[in-house]
C-alpha cells in the first residue's frame, strides 16, 4: 500500500509550490493563466489518485477517509476556478484594473493558497495545520487588497486583523491540546499528531481539552465565518477579485471547518470532556438566523452571496454539531454541494459585474434578456443555493431539518424558518436581477461557461440521483465522525 501513494501526496503539495515560483517568475500573461490551469489540473489528478492509493500515515502528513473528500473537492474547485479566473483576469487586464506585474503576483498567490489549503488538509500535526491555515489566510488577505481601492484596502485590513486574532486564539487552543496530550503521549511529535491524538483522547485531561476546544472553536470559527465572528467575511468577498470570492466561499471556509471537525472528533473520543455538539449547534443556528435576516437589505451582489455563505456555513456547522450518522452525512453532502454551487454563482456574478460594470444590484436588471446564458446560469445557481427541489441542496437541507426534527423539534423549527426566510430574500433579489427590462451600460461578455455549468450540472444531478458508491463513502465517513 505504501508504494506510490506517498508520491502523489507529495505531488499534491509540490505542484502548487513549484508552479507558484514559476508563475512569479514568468512574465507573459497568456501563458501564465494557462500554466495556472495546468497546475491546478495536475493537482486535481494527483488528488484523485489518493482515493484509490493511500499511503500509511506519516509523522507530518496523513490521508484518511475524512480529508480525502475535502482534498478532492478543494482541488476540483481550485481547477474550475482557475479556468474561470483565466477569462476573468483577461478582462481585468483589458480594462486596466490589474497590471501584468500584479497578475504575476496574483497567480503566484493563487498557487500558494492552493498549497496552504492542501497542506492544512493533509497535515497529521495540529501545529503544521495551524501554520498552513495561517499561510492560506495571509495569501487571501493579500489578494483581497489587490485592487488597492480604499474599500479593498479596508476590507483586507479588517480581514487581516480579525483573521489574525482568530488565528492567535486557535494557536492558544493548539498549545492547550498539546498540554492535554503530553501527559499521556510524552513529549515530541506524537502529542501533536492526529492519528495518535484521536486514539488516546480518552485518557487526556478533560478540563484542559474543554478549554482548548473553546479557543479552537472561536479561533477557527472566525475563519469559518460564524456569527458573531463573521465581520470580515462580507467585505473580503465583495472587494477582492471574484475568483478569490469563489475560492474563499467554496474552499477556505471548508478548510477552517475541517479543522474544527478534527478537534471535535478528539473531544467526542473523550467521554469526560464537554460535548462539543451544543456549542457548534448554537453558533451554527445563530449564524443561520442572523445571515438570513441580513440577506434582505443587501445592495451589493457579492455581499448578498457572502451573507448566503455565512448562512450555509451555519447550516453545515449545525449539522455536524447535531452529530450522528445521518446529520453528519447530510453535513458532508451539504458542504460539498454548497462549495460547488456557491463557486458557480460567483463565476456568474464575476462575469455579470464585468459586463455591467457594477456590483450594485439596483443597477443590474433584466439579465436573462441582455445576457441569457449568464442570466439563466444565475437563476439556476440561486435556485440551487436557496434549496429548492430538485437540486442537491434541497435534499441535504431536508435531511438536516428532518433529522433535527426527530431529536430537537424546537431547533428544527428555528432552522427551517430561517432557511425559508433566506429563500424569500434570495428569490426576491433574483427576480430584480434577472427579469424585467435591461438597463444601464452592458458590454457583451466573453465568459467561460464550462465551469459554471459543470458545477451546476453536478448539483442538479446530485438532487436527482447520487451514485451509490458516493453515498456509501459519505456514510462511511459520517459514521467515522460520530
Amino acid at each position: 500500500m505504501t508504494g506510490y501513494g506517498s508520491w502523489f501526496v507529495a505531488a499534491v503539495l509540490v505542484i502548487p509550490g513549484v508552479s507558484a515560483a514559476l508563475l512569479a517568475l514568468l512574465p507573459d500573461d497568456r501563458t501564465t493563466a494557462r500554466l495556472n490551469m495546468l497546475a491546478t489540473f495536475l493537482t486535481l489528478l494527483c488528488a484523485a489518485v489518493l482515493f484509490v492509493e493511500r499511503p500509511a500515515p506519516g509523522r507530518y502528513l496523513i490521508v484518511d477517509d475524512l480529508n480525502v473528500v475535502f482534498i478532492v473537492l478543494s482541488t476540483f474547485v481550485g481547477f474550475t476556478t482557475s479556468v474561470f479566473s483565466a477569462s476573468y483576469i483577461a478582462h481585468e487586464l483589458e480594462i486596466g484594473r490589474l497590471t501584468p506585474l500584479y497578475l504575476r503576483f496574483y497567480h503566484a498567490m493563487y498557487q500558494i493558497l492552493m498549497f496552504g489549503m492542501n497542506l492544512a488538509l493533509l497535515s497529521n500535526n495540529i501545529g503544521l495545520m495551524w501554520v498552513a491555515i495561517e499561510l492560506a489566510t495571509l495569501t487571501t488577505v493579500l489578494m483581497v487588497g489587490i485592487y488597492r481601492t480604499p474599500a479593498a484596502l479596508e476590507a483586507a485590513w479588517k480581514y487581516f486583523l480579525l483573521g489574525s486574532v482568530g488565528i492567535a486564539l486557535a494557536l492558544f487552543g493548539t498549545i492547550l491540546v498539546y498540554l492535554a496530550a503530553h501527559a499521556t503521549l510524552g513529549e515530541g511529535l506524537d502529542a501533536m499528531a492526529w492519528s495518535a491524538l484521536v486514539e488516546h483522547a480518552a485518557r487526556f485531561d478533560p478540563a484542559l481539552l474543554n478549554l482548548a476546544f473553546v479557543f479552537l472553536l472561536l479561533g477557527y470559527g472566525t475563519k469559518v465565518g460564524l456569527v458573531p465572528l463573521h465581520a470580515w467575511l462580507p467585505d473580503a468577498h465583495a472587494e477582492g477579485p471574484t475568483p478569490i470570492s469563489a475560492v474563499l466561499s467554496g474552499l477556505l471556509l471548508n478548510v477552517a471547518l475541517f479543522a474544527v471537525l478534527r478537534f471535535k472528533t478528539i473531544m467526542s473520543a473523550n467521554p469526560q470532556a464537554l460535548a462539543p455538539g451544543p456549542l457548534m449547534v448554537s453558533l451554527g443556528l445563530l449564524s443561520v438566523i442572523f445571515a438570513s435576516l441580513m440577506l434582505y437589505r443587501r445592495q451589493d451582489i457579492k455581499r448578498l452571496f457572502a451573507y448566503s455563505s455565512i448562512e450555509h456555513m451555519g447550516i453545515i456547522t449545525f449539522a455536524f454539531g447535531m452529530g450522528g450518522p445521518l446529520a453528519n452525512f447530510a453535513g458532508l453532502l451539504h458542504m460539498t454541494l454548497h462549495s460547488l454551487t456557491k463557486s458557480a454563482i460567483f463565476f456568474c456574478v464575476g462575469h455579470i459585474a464585468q459586463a455591467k460594470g457594477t456590483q450594485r444590484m439596483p443597477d443590474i436588471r433584466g439579465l436573462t434578456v441582455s445576457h441569457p446564458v449568464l442570466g439563466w446560469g444565475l437563476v439556476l445557481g440561486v435556485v440551487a443555493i436557496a434549496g429548492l427541489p430538485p437540486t442537491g441542496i434541497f435534499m441535504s437541507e431536508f435531511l438536516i431539518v428532518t433529522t433535527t426534527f426527530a431529536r430537537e423539534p424546537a431547533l428544527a423549527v428555528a432552522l427551517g424558518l430561517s432557511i425559508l426566510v433566506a429563500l424569500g430574500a434570495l428569490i426576491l433579489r433574483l427576480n430584480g436581477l434577472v427579469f424585467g427590462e435591461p438597463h444601464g451600460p452592458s458590454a457583451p461578455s466573453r465568459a467561460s461557461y464550462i465551469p459554471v455549468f459543470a458545477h451546476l450540472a453536478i448539483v442538479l444531478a446530485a438532487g436527482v440521483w447520487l451514485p451509490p458508491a458516493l453515498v456509501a463513502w459519505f456514510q462511511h465517513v459520517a459514521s467515522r465522525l460520530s
Partner: protein
Amino acid sequence: MDQIALDVAHLFAGGLVLVSFMLLYQDRMSGLVNTFALHALVVSLSVAWQAYIQHAPHLYITASIALLVKAIVIPTALHRIIVRLGIHRTIEPVVGVGQTMLAGIGLVALSIMVMLPITAAAGTLAREDLAFALSVVLLGLLMMISRRNAVSQVIGFMSIENGLILAATGAKGMPLVVEISVAFSILVALIVIGVFLFRIRERFETVDIHELHEHRGEQP
C-alpha cells in the same frame, strides 16, 4: 537550583504581564512603541531562560527572533511610520485609562482562576506560565478593542503574539515551536509592511479606524 529556575521563569512571565499593563495606559505613540520593544525584550529573555532550563537549544532561535525582529526591527520601523504619519504625539483610548486598567485586572484574575484549577496535572512551570500567557493574550485583545488607531491595534496584536510564544515555550517539549514563531513573525512583518506600504494615511487621510468605516461600500 530548581526552585530558583522556576522563580526566574515566573519573574519573566509576571514581568510580561506587567509590561502588558504598561501598554494599556501609554497615551503617546512613541511611548507605546518603546513599551512594546520592552515587551518583546522581556519575552525573548523569558524564552531564552526556558531554553536554558529545559535544555532545548532550538528555543534560543525563537528567543533571538523575538529579540531581533520584535524588539529592534519592528519598533524602529514603527517609529519611522508614526513620524511620517505625524501621529507621534497622542493617541486616544476609547474608554478612560482607569476603566481599562480595571478591566485588565479583571481579565488577569479571570485567566488565573480559569487556568490554575484545570492545569493541576500539567506541572508547576507550564501551569503558571499558561496563566500568565492567557493574561497577556486577553490584555492584548483588550488593547485591540480599546484603541482606535491602526498602529496601536497592530501593537496590541503583537503583544498577543508574545503571550502565545510564552505559552508555547512553557509547554515543555512542544515540537514546531520555532516553525510557529517564524510563521508568526512573517505574519507580523506583513502587517507592519502593510501599514507602511499601503500608506493608510495617503489612502484614507487618517489611521483612525473609525474613519475608515465611511468606505463600507454598502450605503445606498
